């Protein structure tokens, strides 16, 4: 199976500090990849380079057959909107929009009519265990519920790749596990790839593969020992 997203020889420097020192990384459709490493090791930088948020100084980023690291800002923006989904630690939901409108927003941004967008958004509430919370505002949701709404928002555009940066960072252990379980299974069932930054080994264990980053270099790669066989079931 070919790679959904791949980075080759990625280098990123901030002045004299090197955030990425030549990284190769790839993820296939339906596959989940955890990026681990100590704080300041370059995990977020790697994620942002792969997602077309930051341009690498050297190297290439391929989305399928398309090279994306040289695209213009507007093309990249549209790409992120339509083909990627993002889940962050917190704060990504607009506090004044009800949950369903938060989820529908990316569809509306891509030109869907509002009614249609909300109807499509509502379909995600059941699978993510959010039934009945459609009209709640983010402030009226628990941390775990808010993250699940964020997942719905990332998935509603049916992206090719979902990026998650410390998605459980603000949650307690049990809630975090639950959120990760949903994130990996639902992403997989969509046929999308998942790239997730975490420093929590328990969270990383839910992914198919793990890469260790240290000082901007890949320090180790392994198949996740306890990875659930979700891809096995699919393939």
């Amino acid at each position, binding site marked *: 199976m070919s790679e959904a997203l791949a980075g080759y020889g990625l280098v990123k420097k901030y002045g004299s500090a090197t955030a990425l020192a030549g990284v190769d990384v790839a993820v296939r459709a339906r596959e989940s990849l955890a990026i681990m490493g100590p704080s300041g090791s370059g995990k977020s930088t790697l994620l*942002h380079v792969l997602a077309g948020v930051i341009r690498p100084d050297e190297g290439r980023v391929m989305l399928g057959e398309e090279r994306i690291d040289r695209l213009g800002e507007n093309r990249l*923006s549209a790409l992120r909107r339509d083909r990627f989904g993002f889940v962050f630690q917190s704060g*990504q939901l607009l506090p004044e929009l009800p949950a369903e409108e938060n989820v529908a927003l990316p569809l509306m941004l891509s030109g869907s009519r509002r009614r249609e967008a909300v109807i499509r958004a509502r379909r995600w509430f059941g699978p993510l265990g959010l039934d009945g919370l459609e009209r709640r505002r983010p402030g009226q949701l628990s941390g775990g519920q808010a993250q699940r709404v964020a997942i719905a928002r990332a998935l509603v555009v049916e992206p090719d790749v979902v990026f998650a940066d410390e998605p459980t960072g603000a949650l307690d252990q049990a809630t975090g596990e639950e959120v990760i379980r949903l994130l990996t299974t639902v992403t997989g069932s969509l046929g999308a790839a998942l790239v997730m930054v975490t420093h929590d080994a328990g969270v990383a264990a839910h992914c198919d593969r793990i890469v260790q980053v240290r000082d901007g270099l890949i320090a180790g790669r392994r198949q996740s020992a306890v990875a659930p066989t979700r891809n096995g079931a699919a393939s």
Partner: protein
Amino acid sequence: MNSIALTWKLARTGGRRGWQGQLLAAAAAAISVLILLLLLAVYLGAGTRGDHAAWRTPSPDPRGTAVQALSTTFVRGTPVTVVQLAQLPDRPATAPPPGLTDFSQPGEVYLSPALAALIRELPAGQLAGRFPRPASYHTIGRAGLASPDELIAVIGRTPADPAISSLPESDAGLGLTARAVVSGFARTAANPGSLFAFDQTGALMAVGLLVVPVLVLAAASGRLGAARREQRLAGLRLAGATPRQILAMTGAEAFAVGAAGAMAGAAAYGLLLPLVARVPYGVGAWYPGDLWVGPAYLIAMIVLIAGVIAVSAMSALRRVAMAPLGVARQADPQRTRTARLVVFLVAAGYIGVRASQGNLGIGGTLTLMLLCYGAYLTLGPWVVDRLGRIIGRFARRPAMLLAARRLSDDPRGAWRTVSGLVLAGFVAGFCSVAQLGAIGASYPGQVAVQVTPAEGGQTVEDLAAQARDRLRAAGLIATVQADPDDSLLWDSGIVAQITGGPAEIDTALTVLTGLVPGVAPYTQDLGNADITMTVRQLGQVGFAALLLGFLTAATSAGLTAAATVLDRRRTYRLLRLAGTPLALLNRARTWETAVPLVILAGGTTALGVFAATRLNSMVGTGQSTNAGRLAACVLVGAVAMFAAIGASRPLLRAVTADPVRADD
């Protein structure tokens, strides 16, 4: 480490952005204090200069020592106050009035500097001929003057001189003519004279119109500062600072920044005093000293504004201080009560009933207008909330949806942002339609001389013939009638209809002086003097309120927009990272101000127009809209507002530009 030391350390480590924020907040504090001090200065100054003017109106004392007569003549349509004094024989000497070196002896003339200049400038036949012409004039000193522009003459007479003895004792409340035996001259008085009647009321109106927008501006600056500090303080909270400590720190820092800005504003007030003093209000420009409010008020204003900023910063920060992760958790969106609508409807009903009764007088109309505004103030947040919900239901584009949801999420905040311009809209609407200048009797070109029947043997017809001769000799084209039907005359007398402009009128006034000894000719200006002055001051207050209203409203809208960007920088950054176009976010931000602005400010502008048409029909003048001026006001207001909001675009770009910092 105590809170103050910690606060100082925090402020110093805030970095460049931190200092920029402090600078903005301080600038807003400076503007707030400057405007408040100017308002206060005009209010207090109006009182002080009223005191300087009080001596001209005689305060009767039957056992007095002198006769004082007040009268008013007009040159180029501007009132000239004439005070005639005569020492009574066999009585103790009378102390001179303020500004005069000696009690004026018969034949002596004291002039205010402005009148002396005018007398030099105009031909004697237009002005100087109305007064005795001594070899040289004396000058009235500052102590006797309310304004450097005042036109005043003090003339010494003998008690028997008809110029004094034939003056009426009063003019039925107009306050421009009076005669009495006096024992001295009041230096402070409750009633400074009819030309000053509206001075303090007008200043109070300006205060009423501007005080709310100014406080909103101060509060907005407090919020901006808080948004800048939030990040560092959230970190402190994680490090174990108690909410109380954090609030104390925020309060102390905001107060210090606010006080620094406020002191700069106070200094600006001090520096601008000589300039501001040149701005005419009522009778004219000011003596700078009269506009000095004194150290107590200065300090009080500084403390007031710094306090408002500190309280606003602390309440803006309460959320962060309470939630350790710095996640603003606003549970329920604010609800506005329908009670607001009820209050508004009751007030509107009352206003409608009172207005339809007509005949309210100026005072009643003003009260009603203020009530209108109060009702609108109550209704504002409710309307914003409803607007948000209605638009939220029908919005199709994401920018519109975002704007609508924000409106109903924080209707009071959205209302605060636009309330200043909503008010300015009312003033603009009113001022551009009200035909206040047309109030009063209109007998253009007429010069009248009152004749009392007791005038030794001469008939009115004789006098008319003499007047014709005098006018012809002065080269004027005039028709003179005795006791015409509809004219300026209150009683018996002659009326000359003069062909020409102000110069010809002034010539006629001068040549007809002394036609009947001691009787001064007059024009329509005399009867209209008080209303003309009130109208002029209403215009001046309206214009100042409009200008300062635009300034404060636009500044606070800009600050609020910037604070909002900073408050939500994390969400904006993540949205942009996820591919949301910056233009969309900007459009949403513009809509959320533009929609309530257009609807509410448009509403008050219409209300102002309506109030003015009511007033016009009440005083019986025709309706005419000064559409050009109204359009200009609306345009200036809108442009200022959107420029202010647009000013935070680079800020939005900057705070969303660095995605890697998305986790701060």
